[in-house]
């Protein structure tokens, strides 16, 4: 409700530490609740998906962005507008496949993992997997079926965090009239 009071001022900016700590406690809880890393990853992805299908409306309403005509445009908007808007970072788009249906997002300073070190017994855990779910959910709402997964993760000792997106198909039967 606070946004209504302070319209015009960007009140979306909250402390990234508060955000990181909140996220950390969600993951910690999941680690307690589930034994397998795979199961935790799946739960995070599911939570992300549910965020994604809602956050897309917020994104479209606020950015006023129109429909993308190719996957390169989609990649640009995800990195330059969406990530900027919600996480305050701009990942680098690289490693395009020759067919133009796959690319990677390189994240150098992931705000979610600010104070995190993975314990040895959770080597399979994709700590920031919620981001994958959110991207999948959001793109599904604009009729893009996309697979999203972690390729590299700084938490696992890689130099950089890399998320890969693969375009599967357009969801033609979900297209709103006038868009097909």
């Amino acid at each position, binding site marked *: 409700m606070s946004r209504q009071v302070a319209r015009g001022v960007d009140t979306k900016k909250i402390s990234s530490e508060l955000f990181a700590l909140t996220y950390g406690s969600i993951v910690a809880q999941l680690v307690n609740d589930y034994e397998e890393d795979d199961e935790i990853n799946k739960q995070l992805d599911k939570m992300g998906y549910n965020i994604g299908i*809602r956050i897309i*409306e917020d994104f479209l309403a606020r950015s006023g962005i*129109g429909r993308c005509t190719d996957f390169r445009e989609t990649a640009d908007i995800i990195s330059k507008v969406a990530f900027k808007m919600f996480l305050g970072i701009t990942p680098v788009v690289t490693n395009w496949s020759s067919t133009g249906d796959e690319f990677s997002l390189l994240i150098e300073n992931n705000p979610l993992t600010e104070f995190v070190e993975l314990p040895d017994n959770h080597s399979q855990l994709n700590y920031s997997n919620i981001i994958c779910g959110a991207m999948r959910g959001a793109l599904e709402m604009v009729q893009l079926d996309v697979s999203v997964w972690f390729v590299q993760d700084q938490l696992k000792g890689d130099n950089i965090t890399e998320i890969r997106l693969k375009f599967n198909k357009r969801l033609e039967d979900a297209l*709103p*009239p006038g868009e*097909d």
Partner: protein
Amino acid sequence: MAIFSIWIISRAGGLIYQHDYNLPKVEVEKTFSYPLDLVLKVYDEKVVVAFGQRDGIKVGHTVLSINGQPVEGRFCRDEADVKKDVLEFLNTESNYPMNIKFGRPKLSTNEKIMLAGMFHSLYAIASQLSPQLHSSGIQLLETDTFKLHAFQTLTGIKFVVVTDPKRTSEDLLLKRLYEIYADFALKNPFYSIDMPIR
């Protein structure tokens, strides 16, 4: 410069939000003596004026109340609270003089849901009729008593605003409605998507 009502239609064509603002009230009350010089008929379980327009009472208006007592469909109640058929009641000379209120009845929730679904289809048909590819559906529908402005988001939700015919563009209002929807409906964790907003 009035806005009459706002509708939000889900991607499946279901009505998820509807609100009426200052709809102009069309009601006329008059005292009648026997015999009634209006021709009434029962239509769609309502008693409507079929012929004999006068004093602001128009063909198509429904009998809303008799002597202050609201009419329920095609039945009314007399002084002794006995249920009577309206037409029969109006044909009995001993009941006169009586006060009859005519007007346009408000849309029922079911009718609104039906209209929303119908608009959803019309929107789809409109985009199909276009000689050019990728035409949007209906953006503006104009009549002599109102204008209907529609905006469909990329995800397929339709925002519809019915306004005074004098208003020109409602683009900003529709965009703003979308923002409000994104904020207050979708950020409510207890709201399930595509369900009516309460």
